[in-house]
């Protein structure tokens, strides 16, 4: 049986189910208890699990991030709520020097099973310090897994897998999708890491899209279909590990690819995936692989400017049409 629930409800259910199943799991972050976070994603959890397991902290991101690492090293399974993805910069040492490296530096003796839940996504008119999509920065660090759910279904299944994983996992939730609904099974399910979802099959071009960019890709694919172009959409679901095979198989079939992610384009997720396609499916390609990330500018406040900075369905469709017609996007 399935029912329609919001992305936010899916996250909440995943956490509640895992906390019921495993008493070592706890939640820690700012205003996670009675307030249930500013996005209300965690509402109701403190009522069920109490303040010992839904822990409100002072505004001390490096502090509670570091504490989660220590708790994870000593048989607890913390879920850290980082209110905005932009605050990743405050916890970089604890996340990247401590959590990510402890298992390796200890020769495999110490584990750090923690989940860092945070968000991403622009166009909420929140300006440069509350709008960033920083997944590439985290994905760059060996020892961290990175999930990017694209709907309520993925949000629940990936989060449950993350909580059971023995490694530090960072989950980026697009904060504009919290109220989006999707069909979610009533029965328990988990989504394994490293398994991309072929969201739509197609023949002419592959659109690899993460998180909310899957919606952008779908809209673009609808438009392209009207022009007789059949687009295949691949949602990697986790960018670390990355299901390279599914992506490469698709590109070998379609011979063209656009990679779409909301992080900054330069040195980003799109660059990494595009590079792998170019390296490993080069002889199958009929056109250069195109990256579509966020514009390389801090996110501006004004709607007139902000909307220019993120990939759009029409932008994706335009690029797809051009490369399907054999036009160069960048003059030589």
């Amino acid at each position, binding site marked *: 049986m399935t029912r329609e629930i919001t992305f936010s409800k899916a996250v909440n259910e995943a956490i509640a189910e895992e906390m019921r199943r495993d008493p070592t799991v706890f939640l820690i972050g700012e205003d996670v208890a009675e307030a249930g976070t500013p996005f209300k994603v965690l509402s109701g959890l403190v009522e069920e699990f109490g303040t010992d397991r839904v822990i409100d902290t002072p505004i001390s991101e490096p*502090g509670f991030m570091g504490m989660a690492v*220590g708790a994870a090293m000593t048989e607890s399974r913390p879920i850290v709520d980082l209110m905005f993805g932009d605050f990743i910069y405050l916890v970089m040492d604890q996340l990247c020097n401590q959590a990510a490296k402890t298992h*390796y530096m200890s020769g495999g003796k110490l584990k750090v099973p923690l989940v860092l839940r945070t968000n991403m996504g622009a166009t909420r008119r929140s300006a440069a310090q509350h709008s960033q999509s920083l997944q590439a920065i985290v994905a760059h660090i060996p020892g961290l897994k990175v999930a990017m759910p694209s709907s309520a279904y993925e949000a629940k299944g990936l989060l449950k897998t993350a909580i059971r994983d023995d490694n530090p996992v960072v989950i980026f939730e697009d904060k504009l999708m919290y109220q989006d609904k999707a069909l979610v099974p009533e029965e328990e399910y988990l989504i394994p890491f490293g398994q991309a979802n072929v969201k739509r099959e197609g023949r002419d071009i592959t659109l690899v899209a993460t998180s909310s960019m899957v919606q952008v890709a779908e809209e673009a694919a609808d438009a392209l279909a009207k022009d007789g172009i059949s687009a295949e959409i691949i949602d990697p679901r986790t960018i670390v590990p990355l299901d390279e095979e599914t992506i490469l198989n698709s590109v070998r079939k379609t011979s063209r690819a656009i990679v779409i992610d909301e992080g900054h384009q330069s040195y980003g997720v799109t660059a990494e995936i595009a590079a792998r396609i170019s390296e490993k499916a080069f002889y199958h390609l009929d056109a250069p692989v195109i990256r579509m990330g966020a514009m390389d500018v801090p996110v501006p406040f004004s709607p007139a400017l902000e909307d220019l900075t993120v990939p759009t369905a029409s932008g994706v469709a335009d690029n797809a049409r051009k490369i399907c017609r054999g036009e160069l996007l960048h003059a030589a």
Partner: protein
Amino acid sequence: MSDTRTHNTEDYLRMYKQMVRIRAFEDNANQLYLSAKMPGLTHMYSGQEAVAVGICEALTDEDRITSTHRGHGHCVAKGAEFKAMFCELLGKAEGYCRGKGGSMHIADQSHGNLGANAIVGGSMGIATGAALSAKHLGQDFVTVCFFGDGATAQGLWYEVMNMAALWKLPVIYACENNGYSEYTKTEEIAAGSLTARAEAFGIEAFEVDGQDVLAVNDLTTQLVERCRKGEGPFFIELKTYRYHGHHVGDINRDYYRSKDEEAEWKTVRDPITNFGKWLEDEKILSADELVAINNEIKAEAEAAVEYALNAPYPDTSEVDMHVFAGVDHALDYLGGARG
């Protein structure tokens, strides 16, 4: 020396031996560096032995510690063996971290050592989180967070002290004030008093002579007991001194500290000599017995060095192992293998 005689002979003997073991480990580590047999650099613990031993002798194997870049002493004191330590120092497969950590991350994890941290102050969150875990899981282990005077300048400490105090966590912050952070005197980097900083959070704070193993042990024993009863956290400032440079390569130190100052600590305040004298005065051990212990440990350390020098390096296939728990080889898993 504070004469409490609250312990039995075995305890005194173990404290003495553990301090001598640390000194012997460091003397050999220094030689390995000077003879170019050790990769990289290392930070010597010599001079600070009474801190690690006084504290760790108050702990059980279930109790946790977090250690620092100057961590060999903590590692020995928390129960590590020479062979696996020297192997780690030399990057050998049998090292505690399979040669992946080296001097700055050396730790015998099976005895509750949560790792040595090369980020100054970097383990303050980890130690406090371990204490949160104890509370959360209903276990009664206590965590001791070792750090230097220099680390008190890190903001993380104030964040986690605040939470530890709010939530009454069983953690003891143990600041080894050896007078210097790298080449800078503590007075130049620390305003006001360190104990007052902890007290500002309502944390009981203590100062103790870090060269007096019994004083350190007595205080820690009391605080560990109180932590187990839910009366933590606590802060201890231990006044101590490092005999060597900041690291083994820091040879000419005249520009930041005088030879007289070093000599004074080494001759008048040496924690091992002074405890040895006390053991003699108290007729717990004779001078001959002390010498015999020293020689035995020296021989044990030298044998372990020989063992480690001849031990194999990790197989090259280990380079991408242990990146993720549950994943044999990270490059296969990540799909990013070169070539």
